């Protein structure tokens, strides 16, 4: 079906605008904030950058507390496919990486990086790229480092929208409709920076390889239309003025308005060859490639109940309070602040939240500006909401289903096609907060879907675990069977030979031991020429040998016993293996036996050592110790030592006596 291309080609020639179903005309309130040019803010005391500023994965932090960062330095890197990087909006020091309140309808806190500016605003080295000539793939790839997201409010990472899709993009639609009341940031951007926007469009057009470009602007922005027409003179970019009707700024509505083509509800516009970019986004694209500037700031409308409503170029992370101050401060009766427009925006939890990539407009609200809604009355089935619905849904039906938690039905009535524009709530004569019901139902359904997914994963994991346990059991059983089988086959051959073999081995071992001992005994005793001390030593060694000789008989009897035991065990083993049992019991028993013999050997060694020590003690005594048992020798030695001591004492006593005598 090549129809889209033809349609686009046809439309290029026509000036026709296609009206969509429904839509509302809320009071515009745009004039207040367009009286002054886009203002610049002084550096705030701190910049708080939430990691969650876009749709998709949370980026990965690349800095630590205390690090000094330069303007434009990457501080959080895109993680996964759908994610966007975050850069330092000015030079300074990272002073905190902690949870802080973020601009989110939940009012919850989330991880933020806090930078305390050093006031120098010094740039990191910028790397401009030649977007007119460089190869496309690296250009698109480098966008991952740009941190640019859709600045219309959807904050979808831009690099994904520029990646070559399956379907070729034939038409690029630039969204400059800015249909929500109060918001004027795109209007002011077009008035002041139309050249930059046109260059940005050229960047996007080259990256997408699109044939046609159409800029859609609502007719309530005559100055912006004029500026854009002037900037697009001599180009093939077409400026299309669309009638002011909320919500013409919705991407699908705008595509229909300028092309007359409805994007199927279950498809993305890229699937039919159309890509939509916001004006601020293309301007950021241009700045990134031309000057190497990543996404650091955006134009924000600060309007509503403030003294000097104005648009400002605001660094991301700037506390809202700082912005309010720049706009002359909030009036006294300000009750709260709204981020986004009055139709789709949400109340901010405090004036301490930072400005993020999604913040296109901040409205100071007061009870006079936004009357608190009267209590909701019952639905009277007037179907005005159905008339107003730009997506041609049945809001009154969806309301019933959402209210009664009938999510299946709500889904059947295409609740997820609802763009939450609020046109139905706006026209409802019963003041029913319809969109709130849809949002509730949607988030419940998403949560249910997630729970279902989690349950499926849990089922899979549980089944896998059971299968694994079963497999392990079977493997174990197979191993047992194999071992039993092996033992059986070995048994039949072993039964006759094995005991003999074993006994033979034991006998051989005994023979070896005996032979060794015999060899020891036949050593020549040429001790005649030795000194007395050496003789004493030899005697000690002999004594030790004698003791070993004594146990020699014991050993042999022991060994015989052991041999008998092992033979018995072998027999028992054979019986047991027959019964497929205790395959690993016998080795343990054998081990025990081995331990027994080892023990005995150790004990004997210890005895021998003790004897040797005793023999040593007799060494200094040169008398006929050899013949006497060592214990006696020690005794004698002791006695003799005592005698010697006594003699010495006597001698000394005699000496003293003699001395005394001499003195006398």
């Amino acid at each position: 079906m090549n129809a889209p291309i033809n349609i686009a080609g046809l439309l290029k020639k026509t000036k026709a605008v296609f009206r969509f179903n429904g839509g509302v005309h809320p009071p515009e309130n745009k004039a207040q904030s367009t009286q002054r040019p886009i203002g610049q803010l002084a550096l705030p005391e701190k910049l708080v950058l939430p990691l969650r500023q876009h749709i998709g994965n949370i980026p990965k932090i690349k800095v630590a507390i205390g690090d000094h960062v330069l303007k434009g330095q990457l501080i959080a890197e895109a993680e996964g496919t759908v994610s966007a990087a975050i850069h330092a909006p000015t030079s300074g020091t990272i002073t905190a990486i902690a949870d802080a309140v973020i601009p989110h309808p939940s009012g919850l806190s989330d991880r933020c990086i806090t930078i305390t500016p050093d006031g120098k605003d010094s740039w990191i080295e910028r790397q401009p790229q030649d977007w007119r000539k460089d190869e496309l793939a690296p250009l698109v790839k480098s966008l991952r480092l740009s941190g640019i997201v859709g600045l219309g409010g959807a904050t979808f990472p831009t690099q994904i929208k520029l990646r070559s899709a399956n379907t070729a993009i034939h038409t690029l639609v630039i969204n400059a409709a800015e249909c929500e009341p109060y918001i004027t940031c795109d209007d002011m951007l077009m008035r002041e920076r139309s050249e930059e926007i046109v260059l940005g469009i050229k960047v996007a057009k080259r990256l997408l390889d699109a044939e046609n470009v159409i800029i859609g602007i609502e007719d309530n922005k005559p100055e912006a239309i004029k500026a854009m027409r002037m900037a697009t003179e001599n180009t093939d970019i077409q400026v299309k003025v669309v009638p002011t009707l909320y919500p013409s700024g919705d991407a699908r509505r705008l595509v229909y308005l300028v092309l007359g083509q409805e994007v199927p509800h279950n498809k993305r516009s890229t699937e039919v060859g159309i890509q939509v970019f916001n004006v601020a986004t293309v301007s950021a694209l241009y700045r990134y490639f031309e000057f190497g500037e990543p996404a650091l700031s955006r134009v924000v409308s600060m309007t509503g109940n403030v003294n000097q409503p104005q648009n400002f170029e605001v660094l991301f992370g700037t506390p809202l309070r700082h912005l309010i101050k720049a706009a002359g401060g909030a009036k006294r009766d300000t009750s709260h602040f709204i981020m986004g427009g009055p139709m789709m925006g949400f109340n901010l939890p405090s004036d301490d939240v930072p400005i993020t990539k999604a913040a296109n407009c901040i409205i100071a609200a007061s009870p006079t500006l936004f009357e608190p809604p009267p209590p909701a009355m019952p639905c009277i089935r007037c179907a005005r909401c159905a008339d107003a619905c730009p997506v041609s849904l049945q809001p009154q039906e969806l309301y019933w289903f959402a209210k009664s938690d009938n999510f299946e039905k709500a889904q059947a009535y295409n609740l997820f096609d609802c763009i939450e524009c609020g046109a139905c709530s706006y026209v409802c004569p019963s003041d029913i907060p319809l969109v709130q019901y849809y949002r509730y139902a949607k988030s419940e359904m998403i949560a249910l879907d997630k729970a279902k997914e989690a349950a499926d994963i849990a089922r899979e994991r549980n089944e896998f675990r059971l299968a694994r346990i079963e497999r392990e059991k079977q493997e174990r059983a197979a191993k047992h069977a194999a071992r039993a089988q092996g033992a059986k086959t070995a048994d039949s051959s072993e039964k006759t030979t094995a005991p003999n073999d074993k006994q033979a081995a034991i006998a051989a071992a005994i023979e070896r031991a005996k032979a060794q001992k015999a060899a020891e005994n036949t050593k020549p005793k040429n001790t005649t020429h030795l000194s007395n001390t050496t003789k004493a030593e030899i005697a000690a060694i002999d004594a030790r040998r004698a003791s070993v000789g004594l146990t020699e008989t014991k050993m042999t009897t022991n060994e015989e016993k052991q041999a008998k035991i092992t033979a018995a065990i072998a027999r028992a083993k054979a019986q047991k293996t027959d019964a497929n049992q205790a395959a690993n019991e016998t080795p343990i028993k054998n081990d025990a036996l081995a331990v027994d013999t080892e023990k005995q050997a150790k004990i004997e060694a210890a005895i021998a050592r003790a004897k040797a020590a005793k023999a040593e003690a007799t060494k200094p005594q040169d008398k006929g110790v050899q013949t006497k048992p060592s214990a006696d020798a020690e005794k004698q030695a002791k006695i003799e030592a005592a005698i010697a001591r006594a003699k010495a004492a006597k001698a000394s006593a005699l000496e003293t006596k003699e001395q005394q005598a001499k003195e006398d």
Partner: protein
Amino acid sequence: MLIALYIMLGLALVLGAVLGYAALKFKVEGDPLIARIDAILPQTQCGQCGYPGCKPYATAIANGEADINQCPPGGDEGVHALADLLGVEYKPLNEEHGETKPKMVAFIEEDICIGCTLCIQACPVDAIVGAAKHMHTIVASECTGCELCIAPCPVDCITMNPIVETPENWKWKYPTIPIKPAIHL
């Protein structure tokens, strides 16, 4: 008369052949009822129903051995869904099997863990990582909150924590009309 008989016979043969072919071609493997019951059950694998997992409980329900009100994690909605599927009367949850609680996630206090692996063996979805004499930890995203790991722990280092609300899992609340104190004039 004969023609009519032949026609009927021929029809019977043709239809029989078609039915026989269909029976082979579109044969349904397994019991689809068990799978459908299992799809409703929350897959916590906690065993509070008295069966060693969701599938055995689903099998028991399908065989008429178990009642439909024995699954506390499934809650009242689960019982309603089962009643709808099986065409039986709804009954309130049997309190013998426990109460419905908000979903929790197990947490191992890693300072106390002695690495005994008992919880790893107890976990029905392999959501605990660790090795003998090494610290264990819960893979929170896979934990079903079945609490089966709590009892075997010899040092009581496992606690059940409620799931914390973050901007990621936050849900829009059901619209309510805020009640304000009346202003006395």
